[in-house]
Protein backbone atom coordinates (compact mmCIF):
# COMPACT_ATOMS: atom_id res chain seq x y z
CA UNK A 1 0.00 0.00 0.00
CA UNK A 2 1.40 3.38 -0.97
CA UNK A 3 1.35 6.15 1.59
CA UNK A 4 -0.49 9.08 0.01
CA UNK A 5 0.86 12.61 -0.32
CA UNK A 6 4.51 11.91 0.51
CA UNK A 7 5.73 14.23 -2.25
CA UNK A 8 2.79 16.32 -3.39
CA UNK A 9 0.91 18.58 -1.02
CA UNK A 10 -2.38 17.39 0.46
CA UNK A 11 -5.10 19.74 -0.78
CA UNK A 12 -6.46 20.43 2.72
CA UNK A 13 -3.19 21.06 4.60
CA UNK A 14 -1.22 22.49 1.68
CA UNK A 15 1.88 20.47 2.66
CA UNK A 16 2.94 16.86 2.13
CA UNK A 17 2.36 14.33 4.92
CA UNK A 18 6.06 13.86 5.65
CA UNK A 19 6.58 17.54 6.34
CA UNK A 20 3.45 17.77 8.49
CA UNK A 21 4.63 14.71 10.44
CA UNK A 22 8.06 16.20 11.12
CA UNK A 23 6.52 19.49 12.26
CA UNK A 24 4.15 17.58 14.60
CA UNK A 25 7.16 15.79 16.05
CA UNK A 26 9.02 19.10 16.43
CA UNK A 27 5.99 20.61 18.20
CA UNK A 28 6.22 17.78 20.75
CA UNK A 29 9.95 18.47 21.06
CA UNK A 30 9.18 22.11 21.87
CA UNK A 31 7.22 20.86 24.88
CA UNK A 32 9.95 18.40 25.92
CA UNK A 33 12.74 20.98 25.91
CA UNK A 34 10.32 23.65 27.18
CA UNK A 35 9.59 21.52 30.25
CA UNK A 36 13.31 21.12 30.89
CA UNK A 37 13.95 24.86 30.47
CA UNK A 38 11.16 25.44 33.01
CA UNK A 39 12.94 23.03 35.32
CA UNK A 40 16.13 25.07 34.86
CA UNK A 41 14.32 28.31 35.78
CA UNK A 42 12.71 26.67 38.82
CA UNK A 43 15.99 25.22 40.07
CA UNK A 44 17.91 28.43 39.44
CA UNK A 45 15.42 30.74 41.11
CA UNK A 46 15.18 28.47 44.13
CA UNK A 47 18.90 27.80 44.54
CA UNK A 48 21.02 29.35 47.24
CA UNK A 49 24.40 28.60 45.65
CA UNK A 50 23.72 28.77 41.93
CA UNK A 51 26.64 31.08 41.10
CA UNK A 52 29.02 29.02 43.22
CA UNK A 53 27.87 25.81 41.49
CA UNK A 54 28.16 27.49 38.11
CA UNK A 55 31.69 28.78 38.67
CA UNK A 56 32.79 25.49 40.30
CA UNK A 57 31.54 23.58 37.24
CA UNK A 58 34.00 25.68 35.20
CA UNK A 59 32.24 25.33 31.85
CA UNK A 60 34.55 26.32 29.01
CA UNK A 61 33.15 29.32 27.12
CA UNK A 62 35.64 28.82 24.22
CA UNK A 63 34.42 25.21 23.77
CA UNK A 64 30.76 26.28 24.06
CA UNK A 65 31.27 29.10 21.54
CA UNK A 66 33.14 26.80 19.16
CA UNK A 67 30.37 24.22 19.36
CA UNK A 68 27.77 26.93 18.68
CA UNK A 69 29.66 28.00 15.55
CA UNK A 70 30.07 24.32 14.54
CA UNK A 71 26.30 23.72 14.80
CA UNK A 72 25.40 26.94 12.96
CA UNK A 73 27.83 25.96 10.19
CA UNK A 74 26.24 22.50 10.04
CA UNK A 75 22.86 24.21 9.61
CA UNK A 76 24.03 26.19 6.57
CA UNK A 77 25.64 23.09 5.04
CA UNK A 78 22.31 21.27 5.59
CA UNK A 79 20.40 24.04 3.79
CA UNK A 80 22.94 23.97 0.94
CA UNK A 81 22.59 20.16 0.72
CA UNK A 82 18.82 20.46 0.28
CA UNK A 83 19.22 23.40 -2.14
CA UNK A 84 21.69 21.32 -4.22
CA UNK A 85 19.08 18.57 -4.59
CA UNK A 86 16.45 21.14 -5.59
CA UNK A 87 18.90 22.31 -8.29
CA UNK A 88 19.49 18.66 -9.27
CA UNK A 89 23.19 18.76 -8.32
CA UNK A 90 23.68 15.45 -6.51
CA UNK A 91 27.48 15.77 -6.29
CA UNK A 92 27.19 19.03 -4.36
CA UNK A 93 24.52 17.48 -2.15
CA UNK A 94 26.93 14.70 -1.12
CA UNK A 95 29.61 17.27 -0.29
CA UNK A 96 27.37 19.51 1.82
CA UNK A 97 25.51 16.63 3.50
CA UNK A 98 28.81 14.89 4.27
CA UNK A 99 30.07 18.14 5.81
CA UNK A 100 26.92 18.34 7.95
CA UNK A 101 27.59 14.86 9.36
CA UNK A 102 31.29 15.66 9.87
CA UNK A 103 30.43 18.86 11.78
CA UNK A 104 27.98 16.90 13.94
CA UNK A 105 30.81 14.51 14.80
CA UNK A 106 33.06 17.50 15.66
CA UNK A 107 30.31 18.76 18.00
CA UNK A 108 30.13 15.36 19.70
CA UNK A 109 33.93 15.25 20.02
CA UNK A 110 33.99 18.61 21.83
CA UNK A 111 31.09 17.46 24.01
CA UNK A 112 33.01 14.29 24.91
CA UNK A 113 36.11 16.35 25.79
CA UNK A 114 33.93 18.59 27.97
CA UNK A 115 32.17 15.71 29.75
CA UNK A 116 35.50 13.93 30.29
CA UNK A 117 36.99 17.05 31.92
CA UNK A 118 33.94 17.39 34.18
CA UNK A 119 34.02 13.71 35.23
CA UNK A 120 37.76 13.80 35.92
CA UNK A 121 37.18 16.74 38.30
CA UNK A 122 34.45 14.79 40.11
CA UNK A 123 31.63 16.89 38.63
CA UNK A 124 28.76 14.42 38.23
CA UNK A 125 24.99 14.92 37.79
CA UNK A 126 24.47 14.20 41.49
CA UNK A 127 27.03 16.80 42.60
CA UNK A 128 24.61 19.74 42.62
CA UNK A 129 21.45 21.02 40.91
CA UNK A 130 23.34 23.08 38.32
CA UNK A 131 25.29 20.05 37.12
CA UNK A 132 22.10 17.94 37.25
CA UNK A 133 20.21 20.19 34.84
CA UNK A 134 23.40 20.81 32.79
CA UNK A 135 23.82 17.08 32.17
CA UNK A 136 20.10 16.50 31.49
CA UNK A 137 19.81 19.36 28.99
CA UNK A 138 23.13 18.86 27.19
CA UNK A 139 22.84 15.05 27.38
CA UNK A 140 19.38 15.04 25.81
CA UNK A 141 20.58 17.50 23.18
CA UNK A 142 23.63 15.32 22.45
CA UNK A 143 21.30 12.30 22.03
CA UNK A 144 19.40 14.33 19.42
CA UNK A 145 22.68 15.06 17.62
CA UNK A 146 23.50 11.34 17.72
CA UNK A 147 20.06 10.50 16.30
CA UNK A 148 20.64 13.03 13.52
CA UNK A 149 24.05 11.52 12.72
CA UNK A 150 22.50 8.02 12.44
CA UNK A 151 19.61 9.10 10.18
CA UNK A 152 21.80 11.39 8.04
CA UNK A 153 24.41 8.63 7.64
CA UNK A 154 21.66 6.34 6.33
CA UNK A 155 20.44 9.06 3.95
CA UNK A 156 23.92 9.69 2.47
CA UNK A 157 24.64 5.93 2.38
CA UNK A 158 22.10 3.23 1.46
CA UNK A 159 19.17 5.69 1.55
CA UNK A 160 20.70 7.76 -1.29
CA UNK A 161 19.72 5.07 -3.81
CA UNK A 162 16.24 6.61 -3.74
CA UNK A 163 17.64 9.61 -5.68
CA UNK A 164 17.94 7.42 -8.79
CA UNK A 165 14.43 5.99 -8.57
CA UNK A 166 12.43 8.85 -7.03
CA UNK A 167 14.39 12.12 -6.81
CA UNK A 168 11.41 14.15 -5.57
CA UNK A 169 10.77 11.81 -2.64
CA UNK A 170 14.47 11.77 -1.72
CA UNK A 171 14.48 15.60 -1.72
CA UNK A 172 11.46 15.58 0.61
CA UNK A 173 13.32 13.22 2.96
CA UNK A 174 16.34 15.54 3.04
CA UNK A 175 14.04 18.50 3.69
CA UNK A 176 12.50 16.61 6.65
CA UNK A 177 15.97 15.67 7.97
CA UNK A 178 16.93 19.34 7.58
CA UNK A 179 13.95 20.57 9.61
CA UNK A 180 14.95 18.23 12.43
CA UNK A 181 18.59 19.32 12.20
CA UNK A 182 17.76 23.04 12.33
CA UNK A 183 15.58 22.39 15.37
CA UNK A 184 18.51 20.73 17.15
CA UNK A 185 20.60 23.82 16.28
CA UNK A 186 17.81 26.06 17.54
CA UNK A 187 17.73 24.29 20.93
CA UNK A 188 21.50 24.75 21.29
CA UNK A 189 21.14 28.47 20.53
CA UNK A 190 19.12 28.74 23.78
CA UNK A 191 21.22 26.21 25.72
CA UNK A 192 24.54 27.96 25.13
CA UNK A 193 23.83 31.33 26.81
CA UNK A 194 21.59 29.73 29.45
CA UNK A 195 24.17 27.25 30.69
CA UNK A 196 27.52 28.79 29.78
CA UNK A 197 27.12 32.55 29.97
CA UNK A 198 24.39 33.47 32.47
Amino acid sequence: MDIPYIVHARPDTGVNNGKLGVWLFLASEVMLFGALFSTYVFLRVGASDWHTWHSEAGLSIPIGTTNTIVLITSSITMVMAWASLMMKEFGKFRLYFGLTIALALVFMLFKAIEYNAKFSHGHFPGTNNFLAIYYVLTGLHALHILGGIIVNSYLIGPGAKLWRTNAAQFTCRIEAAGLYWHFVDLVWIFLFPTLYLL
Partner: protein
Amino acid sequence: MTDEHADEVRKHLKLYIGVFVALIVLTVATVAVSKLALGVALAVSVALIIATLKVSLVGAYFMHLAWEKRAIYALLLVAGAFLFSMMGLLIWSLDAHLPGTVKAPIEATEKHHPSPEGH
Protein backbone atom coordinates in the same frame (compact mmCIF):
# COMPACT_ATOMS: atom_id res chain seq x y z
CA MET B 1 10.76 19.72 -8.14
CA THR B 2 10.34 21.72 -11.29
CA ASP B 3 12.82 24.10 -12.93
CA GLU B 4 10.70 26.87 -11.45
CA HIS B 5 11.45 25.53 -7.95
CA ALA B 6 15.16 25.28 -8.79
CA ASP B 7 15.25 28.93 -9.90
CA GLU B 8 13.49 29.98 -6.71
CA VAL B 9 16.06 28.10 -4.57
CA ARG B 10 18.93 29.61 -6.60
CA LYS B 11 17.60 33.08 -5.79
CA HIS B 12 17.64 32.27 -2.06
CA LEU B 13 21.25 31.06 -1.86
CA LYS B 14 22.65 34.52 -1.06
CA LEU B 15 19.97 34.97 1.59
CA TYR B 16 21.03 31.70 3.28
CA ILE B 17 24.67 32.85 3.36
CA GLY B 18 23.55 36.23 4.77
CA VAL B 19 21.60 34.49 7.55
CA PHE B 20 24.64 32.32 8.33
CA VAL B 21 26.89 35.40 8.66
CA ALA B 22 24.27 37.12 10.87
CA LEU B 23 24.11 34.04 13.12
CA ILE B 24 27.90 34.00 13.57
CA VAL B 25 27.96 37.77 14.32
CA LEU B 26 25.15 37.35 16.87
CA THR B 27 26.99 34.44 18.52
CA VAL B 28 30.10 36.62 18.94
CA ALA B 29 27.83 39.43 20.24
CA THR B 30 26.29 37.07 22.84
CA VAL B 31 29.74 36.17 24.20
CA ALA B 32 30.95 39.80 24.07
CA VAL B 33 27.88 41.10 25.95
CA SER B 34 28.31 38.41 28.62
CA LYS B 35 31.77 39.85 29.40
CA LEU B 36 30.25 43.23 30.27
CA ALA B 37 29.42 43.83 33.90
CA LEU B 38 25.66 44.06 33.41
CA GLY B 39 23.23 43.26 36.19
CA VAL B 40 21.68 39.76 36.19
CA ALA B 41 18.28 40.97 34.92
CA LEU B 42 19.80 42.99 32.06
CA ALA B 43 22.30 40.24 31.16
CA VAL B 44 19.51 37.63 31.02
CA SER B 45 17.27 39.95 28.97
CA VAL B 46 19.99 40.80 26.43
CA ALA B 47 21.06 37.14 26.09
CA LEU B 48 17.46 36.00 25.57
CA ILE B 49 16.74 38.77 23.04
CA ILE B 50 19.82 37.80 20.99
CA ALA B 51 18.93 34.08 21.26
CA THR B 52 15.34 34.81 20.15
CA LEU B 53 16.66 36.82 17.19
CA LYS B 54 18.94 33.93 16.19
CA VAL B 55 16.15 31.36 16.58
CA SER B 56 13.84 33.56 14.46
CA LEU B 57 16.45 33.71 11.68
CA VAL B 58 16.93 29.92 11.72
CA GLY B 59 13.17 29.31 11.80
CA ALA B 60 12.21 31.88 9.18
CA TYR B 61 14.88 31.12 6.56
CA PHE B 62 16.59 27.77 7.21
CA MET B 63 13.30 26.07 8.19
CA HIS B 64 11.40 28.10 5.58
CA LEU B 65 8.77 29.36 8.03
CA ALA B 66 8.80 32.69 6.18
CA TRP B 67 7.15 30.92 3.23
CA GLU B 68 5.27 28.12 4.99
CA LYS B 69 1.63 27.05 4.77
CA ARG B 70 -1.12 27.93 7.25
CA ALA B 71 -1.35 24.35 8.64
CA ILE B 72 2.23 24.56 9.93
CA TYR B 73 1.64 27.99 11.50
CA ALA B 74 -1.49 26.66 13.23
CA LEU B 75 0.47 23.69 14.57
CA LEU B 76 3.22 25.92 15.93
CA LEU B 77 0.70 28.32 17.41
CA VAL B 78 -0.78 25.46 19.47
CA ALA B 79 2.69 24.30 20.59
CA GLY B 80 3.64 27.92 21.43
CA ALA B 81 0.42 28.44 23.41
CA PHE B 82 1.10 25.32 25.50
CA LEU B 83 4.74 26.33 26.00
CA PHE B 84 3.85 29.83 27.21
CA SER B 85 1.07 28.41 29.42
CA MET B 86 3.59 26.06 31.00
CA MET B 87 6.11 28.88 31.51
CA GLY B 88 3.29 31.09 32.86
CA LEU B 89 2.23 28.41 35.33
CA LEU B 90 5.82 28.13 36.49
CA ILE B 91 6.15 31.86 37.12
CA TRP B 92 2.73 31.92 38.80
CA SER B 93 3.68 28.98 41.03
CA LEU B 94 6.92 30.69 42.04
CA ASP B 95 4.97 33.79 42.95
CA ALA B 96 1.94 32.20 44.61
CA HIS B 97 3.19 29.03 46.23
CA LEU B 98 6.81 29.66 46.95
CA PRO B 99 6.75 33.28 48.05
CA GLY B 100 10.20 33.09 49.55
CA THR B 101 11.96 31.70 46.48
CA VAL B 102 12.55 34.88 44.56
CA LYS B 103 13.83 36.88 47.50
CA ALA B 104 15.38 34.04 49.49
CA PRO B 105 16.55 30.55 48.57
CA ILE B 106 14.44 27.42 49.07
CA GLU B 107 16.76 26.28 51.86
CA ALA B 108 15.76 29.33 53.87
CA THR B 109 12.04 28.76 53.37
CA GLU B 110 12.37 25.04 54.17
CA LYS B 111 13.31 25.92 57.74
CA HIS B 112 9.77 27.18 58.30
CA HIS B 113 8.15 23.87 57.24
CA PRO B 114 5.67 22.54 58.05
CA SER B 115 3.48 25.59 58.18
CA PRO B 116 -0.23 25.36 58.94
CA GLU B 117 -1.10 27.15 55.68
CA GLY B 118 0.91 24.63 53.69
CA HIS B 119 3.26 27.28 52.27
